[in-house]
């Protein structure tokens, strides 16, 4: 259980900023090119795949062959081609949690990108034009105008991602089954549901309690927004 809690904290700490930042990067970059629709649909595609399917896709990527045969997994094939030793991405406790988080970012970045991109389009262009005329660099236009204007959307995306990451289950279940020190709260709950139902239910309650502060924060923020109107 301690492992599960620690892993969930790690997931929160790394995957939430990871998805939001990558989503932001894609939203900003694709906003400036003509093939925006194509690029965005490709980034969004993992969201359309079932999570179990995504897990199977990444099992192929992370595959390791310990025998004398060639590597089937593309990641280890690249490492071996560059002269390194193949890495057991899913069973080596040093890297496996991060490997799972990469899958999480791959899945959810499209979701963040879509919402952030919609917000980017609603930033009034007069504001940005005015700043550019005054000699602001692209970076300061982004950090001093774009980000503050779309801040409410960033907060919404972040809270949604926090709840999603707390609930994470499918990725861990398919890729490692919670073994090798990758267990998260939802996996622990699932594992105990038959053998120790009472404890499993207790874990479910913990999971709900963890999401309560975020829900309270969300309600508080909505109220504040209503009051502003």
């Amino acid at each position, binding site marked *: 259980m301690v492992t599960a809690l620690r892993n969930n904290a790690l997931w929160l700490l790394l995957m939430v900023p990871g998805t939001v930042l990558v989503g932001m*990067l*894609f939203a900003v*970059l*694709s906003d*400036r*090119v003509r093939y925006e629709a194509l*690029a965005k649909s*490709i*980034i969004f*595609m*993992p969201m359309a*795949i079932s999570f179990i*399917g995504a897990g*199977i*896709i*990444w099992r*192929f*990527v992370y595959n390791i062959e310990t025998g004398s*045969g*060639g*590597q*089937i*997994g*593309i990641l280890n*094939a690249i490492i071996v081609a560059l002269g390194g030793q193949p890495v057991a991405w899913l069973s080596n406790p040093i890297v496996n949690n991060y490997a799972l988080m990469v899958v999480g970012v*791959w899945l959810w*970045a499209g979701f963040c990108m879509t919402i952030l991109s919609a917000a980017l389009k609603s930033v009034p262009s007069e504001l940005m034009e005015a700043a550019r005329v005054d000699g602001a660099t692209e970076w300061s236009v982004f950090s001093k105008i774009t980000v503050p204007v779309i801040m409410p959307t960033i907060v919404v995306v972040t809270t949604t991602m926090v709840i999603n990451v707390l609930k994470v289950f499918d990725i861990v279940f398919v890729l490692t089954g919670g073994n090798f020190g990758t267990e998260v709260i939802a996996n622990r709950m699932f594992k105990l549901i038959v053998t120790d139902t009472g404890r499993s239910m207790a874990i479910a309650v913990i999971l709900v309690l963890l999401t309560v502060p975020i829900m309270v924060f969300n309600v508080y923020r909505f109220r504040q927004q209503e009051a502003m109107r």
Partner: protein
Amino acid sequence: MKPFSRLNRFLKSLPLHVILITLVLLWVLPTVGLFVTSFRPREAVRTTGWWTVFFRPNRSAPGSTPRIAPPVTATMAKASAA
């Protein structure tokens, strides 16, 4: 003057295109892997990576290794024995 300014604009936006296209290709790569794998015979999936399809098309193309089915009489004998 006109073509030069155009070239200049293109060169200015080149890093943007390179970064975005690289990221998009990186994002689609795992799915392409599964897509290619779904067309390959089981033996080939177990022994070689899916990308080898693009380098050595003859070795892992489906149907290139003749698979010999057991003679019909043998399977019939097994069925009758069971």
